[in-house]
């Protein structure tokens, strides 16, 4: 406990130091605050993209899902190599346009293509907003939950939850405020490295504890047949759902504002090309390793039937704790005395997962609200310096509001807003995916109209909303059991996009005017 506490405090101090260092190198311009002067190199770009994608939900939840559902969930990792390709293919085009025209947010690029349409800008901002807000709230909640899991002793769990959530929020807000993108990216380098190393060490420790690779495979092969087949124990992962997830989920997660801004911030096309390769090779293997931990956990701590339902083993408590349990059990066993230090570093790595996602989303939300709302609709005459300070104010206000919600939700289980936000997080990526059709049109096809793009996004968002718990309908449950919800929204989105574009084409691209009547034609010569 003491070693873990010292490691955590040291880590938080380092983050504050990074914030100060970022502040000393910063200039008071939007381009510098949001995009680090468009000068991010390979390490910062690759690791910040990976760390932003790998939230606490990924570190704890994905192995938890593999523990619960078995091998079926491993196929989720197979969306990542394609996602790596999207980093380059999409990212290099976005970066080029951003550098040429001074774009900062996704809406800058998309709305500009459609003639500066306010409707398009608001829809793009809404796609981002619906992704970012649930992530910020749930990362802060995750920080409190992790603090409680790691540091709580009898009777002080709620106090530790509050302290953890507040400390994590304060430090994250501190370094984002001070250094902007520069500090966020530098801290993501540390956080991403800790997370990835932590996953691989935990995987090695788990496999080793189960008797090496052959022992691991033998024990896992002896799991019940439902855990070794598709659609998994809870019947949640049929092949069509896995396929639509693999095809679209990765791309959807890359058009969210936090990632889009990272494309603008990359120094060059070569930086993104190399980052894409690093992403494609490292992240799928890390994710696969984390799920192998979950699968091993299922063999070591089989779920139990409680009140007629399958629940996590009593020693684990909940599915999401399987990684933490295996870390505590087997890393000191593998590494001896040094294992305690490594365990502390990895625990910090798990906390880092919450912070690296929260910082990116807070920073991106500030850009979206400042550029797409404040600058366009509130004070168009605001100076760049004023907008940079408004962005900082947004970060403080949103973080405090999220912290208040989380603390209230923890104290009162009936407090509905946090539960509603948690429900929205499950479809956050599906909301974000609704920006994809317009993005593809802007970057490659160039055939859509502003009205088509905006109404397409509106229809896609509305479709996704129909699959949230707020709109309970049996058909929705059947569809979402077999297909990715984001994909369903995109189908509707594209259909509306095409239909409205035909009805209201872009200027200069409408149907050819009818031929002029013969009387108005020039008389034939001679």
């Amino acid at each position, binding site marked *: 406990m003491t070693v873990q506490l010292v490691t955590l405090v040291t880590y938080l101090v380092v983050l504050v130091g990074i914030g100060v260092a970022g502040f000393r190198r910063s200039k008071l311009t939007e381009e510098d605050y949001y995009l680090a002067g468009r000068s991010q190199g390979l390490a910062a770009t690759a690791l910040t993209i990976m760390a932003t994608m790998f939230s606490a939900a990924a570190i704890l939840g994905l192995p938890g899902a593999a523990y619960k559902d078995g091998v079926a969930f491993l196929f989720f990792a*197979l969306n990542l190599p394609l996602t790596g390709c999207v980093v380059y293919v999409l990212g290099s085009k976005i970066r080029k346009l951003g550098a040429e025209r001074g774009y900062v947010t996704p809406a800058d690029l998309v709305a500009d293509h459609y003639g500066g349409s306010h409707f398009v800008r608001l829809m793009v901002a809404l796609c981002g907003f619906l992704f970012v807000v649930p992530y910020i709230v749930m990362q802060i909640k995750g920080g409190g939950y992790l603090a409680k899991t790691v540091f709580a002793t009898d009777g002080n769990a709620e106090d530790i939850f509050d302290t953890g959530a507040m400390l994590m929020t304060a430090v994250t807000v501190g370094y984002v405020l001070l250094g902007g993108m520069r500090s966020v990216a530098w801290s993501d380098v540390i956080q991403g490295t800790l997370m990835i190393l932590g996953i691989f060490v935990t995987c090695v420790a788990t496999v080793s504890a189960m008797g090496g690779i052959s022992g691991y495979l033998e024990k896992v092969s002896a799991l019940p047949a439902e855990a*070794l087949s598709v659609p998994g124990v809870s019947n949640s992962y049929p*092949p069509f759902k896995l396929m639509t997830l693999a095809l679209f989920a990765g791309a959807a997660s890359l058009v969210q504002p936090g990632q889009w801004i990272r494309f603008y911030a990359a120094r060059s096309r070569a930086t993104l090309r190399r980052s894409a390769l690093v992403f494609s090779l490292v992240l799928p293997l890390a994710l696969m390793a984390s799920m192998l931990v979950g699968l091993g956990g299922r063999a070591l701590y089989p779920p139990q039937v409680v009140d007629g339902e399958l629940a996590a083993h009593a020693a684990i408590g909940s599915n999401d704790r399987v990684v933490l349990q295996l870390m505590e059990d087997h890393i000191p066993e593998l590494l001896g005395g040094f294992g305690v230090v490594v365990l502390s570093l990895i625990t910090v790595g798990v906390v880092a997962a919450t912070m690296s996602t929260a910082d990116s989303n807070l920073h991106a939300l500030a850009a979206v609200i400042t550029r797409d709302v404040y600058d366009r609709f509130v004070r168009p005459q605001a100076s760049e310096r004023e907008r940079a300070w408004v962005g900082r104010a947004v970060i403080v206000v949103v973080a405090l509001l999220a912290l208040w919600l989380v603390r209230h939700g923890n104290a009162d289980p009936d407090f509905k807003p946090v539960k509603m936000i948690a429900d929205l997080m499950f479809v956050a990526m599906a909301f974000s995916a609704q920006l994809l059709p317009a993005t593809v049109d802007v970057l490659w096809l160039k055939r859509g109209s502003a009205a088509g793009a905006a109404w397409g996004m509106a229809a896609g968002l509305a479709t996704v909303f129909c699959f949230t718990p707020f709109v309970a309908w049996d058909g929705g449950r059947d569809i979402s059991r077999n297909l990715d919800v984001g994909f369903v929204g995109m189908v509707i989105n594209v259909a509306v996009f095409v239909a409205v574009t035909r009805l209201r084409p872009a200027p200069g691209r409408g149907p050819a005017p009818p031929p002029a009547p013969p009387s108005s034609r020039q008389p034939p010569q001679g």
Partner: protein
Amino acid sequence: MPENATCCRMRGMTRRGLILTAAMVVAIAMGPGVGLYLVNPDLDDPEPAVAALGAPVLLLWALGWLAVQLTIVVIAYRTVWTDEESDG
């Protein structure tokens, strides 16, 4: 470089890119997609074939197609993406 040479090189690059894109789509359809029906253990069978070569069949299937996907990315990085970059 003569115009037609650039044109042919561009055409070759596009062809390679298209082949790799098609290969990635096939890898996704076979790996986490409908290809799973080829190897998924039949739970109605009293003794479903969940393991092969001492490992769960679906684990081997996932790792195999992951390896294919990673190979495609490395080829794209070394050939298609490099060519595109030199083009501008």
